[in-house]
């Protein structure tokens, strides 16, 4: 934690807000979202998925229920005569429905945040609650945060419906790893972290968590799994927040091989399989400014 005066801390917070806006502006650009993954090529009929990738794709939209939130653009089987009121799309799927969910993730007590419960030299304490702090996600935003006013008093009554919820992330590029040296990192140096608090450190851990969260649930904090169990393998510490916990996941009955197939499929979502060209950067059309109604341009 960096000790800052109140004035400098305000400036720092403004800078972080602007960081976020700048990153968002970059991410929406075609340089990041180029839609040139192997899966896009598969949809276009110019690439073939391996057996493991295809198995993972079928699990993704079947037994594993991933596509209930990470929309794959292919999930609607209404019967004849029924109305399609789903999210069918004729554009490249985004692999998110942009909703908010509580997936029951444990606290990540490795974060320095939990030990920042002492005042700095200016008297500022970042996290007065220490390890008792509960990240309520959208609920925390709606209900104010450590004494700051709520963003809108009319939203406060909605807080119970949003505690513990975080936005569903896109899965595009979820398996992307940095390049090797000389421009990237040596093997094992760069550790990719997943979820809002970085508790899960690989796609395999992510899938295993979704598969066994409730099967291997223990009422303990991270670092305190019972003897004979292994955290993240046969023991999942208790969720940071129980309210609104999504129960679609948690006991999917996937085998280890099926978990691996799902990872293989998600690794097909990394852009760059098809060389990025000016033509590829123009897709999908719905992402372009011209596709938006005038009021949104």
């Amino acid at each position, binding site marked *: 934690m960096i000790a800052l005066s109140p004035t400098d801390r305000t400036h720092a917070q403004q800078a972080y807000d602007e960081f976020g806006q700048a990153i968002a502006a970059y991410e929406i650009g075609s340089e990041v979202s180029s839609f040139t993954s192997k899966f896009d090529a598969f949809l276009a009929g110019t690439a073939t998925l391996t057996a493991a990738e295809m198995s993972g794709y079928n699990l993704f*939209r*079947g*037994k594993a*229920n991933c*596509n*209930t*939130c990470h929309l794959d653009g*292919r*999930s*609607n*089987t*209404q019967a004849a005569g*029924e109305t399609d*009121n*789903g999210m069918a799309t004729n554009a490249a799927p985004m692999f998110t*429905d942009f*909703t908010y*969910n509580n997936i029951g993730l444990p606290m990540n007590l490795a974060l320095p945040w939990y030990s920042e419960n002492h005042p700095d030299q200016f008297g500022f304490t970042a996290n007065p609650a220490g390890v008792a702090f509960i990240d309520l996600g959208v609920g925390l935003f709606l209900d104010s945060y450590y004494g700051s006013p709520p963003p809108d008093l009319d939203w406060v009554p909605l807080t119970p419906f949003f505690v513990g919820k975080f936005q569903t992330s896109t899965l595009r590029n979820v398996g992307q790893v940095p390049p090797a040296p000389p421009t990237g990192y040596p093997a094992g140096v760069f550790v990719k972290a997943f979820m809002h608090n970085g508790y899960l450190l690989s796609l395999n851990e992510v899938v295993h968590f979704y598969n066994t969260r*409730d*099967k291997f*649930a223990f*009422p303990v904090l991270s670092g305190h799994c019972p003897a004979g169990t292994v955290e993240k393998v046969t023991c999942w510490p208790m969720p940071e927040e*129980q309210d*609104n*916990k*999504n*129960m*679609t996941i*948690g*006991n999917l*009955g996937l085998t280890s091989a099926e978990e691996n197939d799902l990872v293989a499929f998600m690794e097909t979502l990394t852009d760059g399989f098809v060389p990025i060209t000016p033509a590829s950067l123009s897709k999908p059309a719905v992402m372009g400014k011209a596709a938006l109604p005038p009021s949104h341009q």
Partner: protein
Amino acid sequence: MKKLVFVTVVFAAACGLSTPNRLTADDQSPGNATAHRVQITEGPQLESASDNSAIIRWTADRVKGTSLRYGVVHYGTDLHGLSQTAKSPNRWNGALPAMVYRVQINHLKPGTTYFYRVESVDAKDISEGPESAVSQFTTPAAGERIVNFTQPE
């Protein structure tokens, strides 16, 4: 084919996990001609339980409409007074013909028998099907756990 896999059973024999599941007569009634009704095809049953929590699961078909639904469990220690309610969000996979509802119940007491019945509501909190018949489960003793899982093959 389904195979019941009893992964871990702790005091299960003494727990009386559930009674046979039956649908109420309401399931067969025509009801509102415009209202869509799901049908419970499997369960409800206890999936797992700790000394202070339990997960109830069941399968329904005739599902359509919004992706977000809620499983609802009305429960209590008095067979005739299911005064408490647990409600969990579940997502329907539109690529599948049926969906599994799972609801977690918290703040239970160890070694206690609970009665329950289930229903589901849509994203607007409108009931979308029949309530099940009343079943029951018993939580294990303090520090113990029951895992009762149906593994598809």
